[in-house]
């Protein structure tokens, strides 16, 4: 099977992906607040965020689908992971150097024990 892909596999994967995406969307739609499908002031669901909410300093962007808005339920769900990743990126030179040393130490340890 190396290097050859059956078009059918792709179709299966695509269908399964669609189903998962639909379920995720449903879940996120229910989990988020402020989504109204019909009636007065219908708001389409796009993100977990309330589209009408005024974000400080971004008032003039109200109503546009900006990069900030397009962030859906999946991303909201694992928000804590992103916060942890972003906190690690401190921008301090000392941290960059210590990560380099840690990497070398890891490689060195692995190679000396099992190399």
């Amino acid at each position, binding site marked *: 099977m190396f290097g050859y892909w059956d078009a059918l596999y792709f179709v299966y994967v695509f269908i399964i992906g669609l189903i998962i995406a639909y379920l995720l969307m449903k879940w996120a739609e229910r989990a988020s607040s402020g989504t109204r499908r019909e009636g007065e002031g219908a708001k389409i669901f796009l993100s977990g965020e309330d589209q009408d909410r005024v974000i400080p300093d971004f008032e003039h962007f109200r109503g546009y689908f900006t990069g900030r808005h397009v962030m859906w339920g999946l991303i909201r769900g694992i928000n804590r992971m992103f916060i942890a990743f972003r906190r690690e990126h401190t921008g301090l030179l000392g941290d960059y150097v210590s990560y*380099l040393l840690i990497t070398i130490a890891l490689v060195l340890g692995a190679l000396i024990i099992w190399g």
Partner: protein
Amino acid sequence: MNVLPFVIIIPLLGVFSLPLVGLVGKKAREAWALLISGATLGVTSKLLYNVWSTKETLVYTLGAKSPMGQGVGFPVRIVWEVDLLSAIMAFTIAFVAFLAVAYSIEYMRHDTGLEKYYVLILVLELGMLGIVLTGDIFNFYVFLEIMSIASYALVAFRNDTWEGIEAGIKYMFVGSLASSFILLGIALLYGQYGTLTMAYLAEKMAANFTLTAKIALAFLIGGLLFKSGAVPVHMWLADAHPAAPSSISAMLSGLVIKAGGVYVIARIAFSVFGMAVNLRTLGWVIIFFACLTLIVGNAMAVVQTDMKRLLAFSSVGQIGYILLGLGIGLAAYGTKVGEIATAGAIYHTVNHAIMKALLFMVAGAVLHELGTKDLNELSGLAKTMPKTTFAFIVGAAAIIGLPPLNGFASKWLLYESSALFNPFLGAIAIIGTAFCTAAYIRVLYTFLGRPSERVMKAKEPGMAMLLPMFILVGAIILMGLFPWQISKGVMIPAASMLANIKGYVLAVMGGV
């Protein structure tokens, strides 16, 4: 005629003659830079054709007919050694560098100090070409430093902005430390084995593999992982690549992290240490870092609001795929799975160079026309810049791995081999792609959304910027039409030549 030395001679000539030609005028300088990089592209394509058609490792000795010393049975001279992987890398470097030079003619028009810019861009190309050609480990260090110094200077090229300076300082200080560790590794190898020729080093190491060599390997791998931007040493990349001018970002993200990082890891792991070290361990070490890189790089791309920073983090994620293929190729050395994984890694290296160069050029076009790269302000760009948006859609679809485009073929090889090697790794690769998709869909939503006022004033960039972008789009679509022909005809032979360690050694040592 042996074309190999001209791959270095032509850019070297260009570098030193460019300031003189620049005295004639601005147009002459640009034309000369374009001519030099075009000639380099021609020579490298001839080199690629020669190596591909004969499937033999080319060896060129500097200053003599044979690398062997007079009266001694071992090589004492500097050799350049080119197998198919080197030739592919050289061709990719020359191709993307040529387009980056063409792109910067319009993109950099408003900047000053352009004679330095064109000299540095050619030095960068020269350094990368030297790295992929050389067969001598100290010569490799010299070219690595040529490349690194040029890229430090180019990251900080816009020294009137704080961003360039801060990124340049971080990149430069930690990068020099990593280079020093690489030099330390080379010094330890020299002290242990008394030679610098990679092939002879491999032969001596196979006979007697000591603890010192292991320590040297750890320093080399650590430093090179830094240069290729693997997690957790990826942070300089995310700072430096967005701060550089966009034509340089295209070269840094597309080429430098591969020529100066991943390629050398492959060369050192296979050709130098391949017969001595426990390849399974080394492979799993690289797979470990590759998995971290895949997840963190792609995930960080999702939460960025700066377009170029998003692309830089996406580069980190894609380096993860390449390292994953390489690691599986090492851990499963000698099997069909390992060969496919290595071929996938090589294929993805080439594809990612083309795709990421295109995406950074698009970001540069947006930045050039609108003066901002903040995604919150770019809503609805498709209305006023449809051609640029089309180029972006093609690049994004290719990097996600949608079937008709080139990214699909390489990613498929990587998924398939990783799933067969260890299903867990395949799952991690898929999760990385999910994050990658999320990041790019986010940009696409912004581009296709409702136009904001600022965007309405924008217009398409000029022909000199659009043409390189559309050449890259054409390359992506063309490579996407013949995925298995390319993979069977070029990439798998390159992987098997890389895995043929004895062949690499014998090409220099002769039939001894």
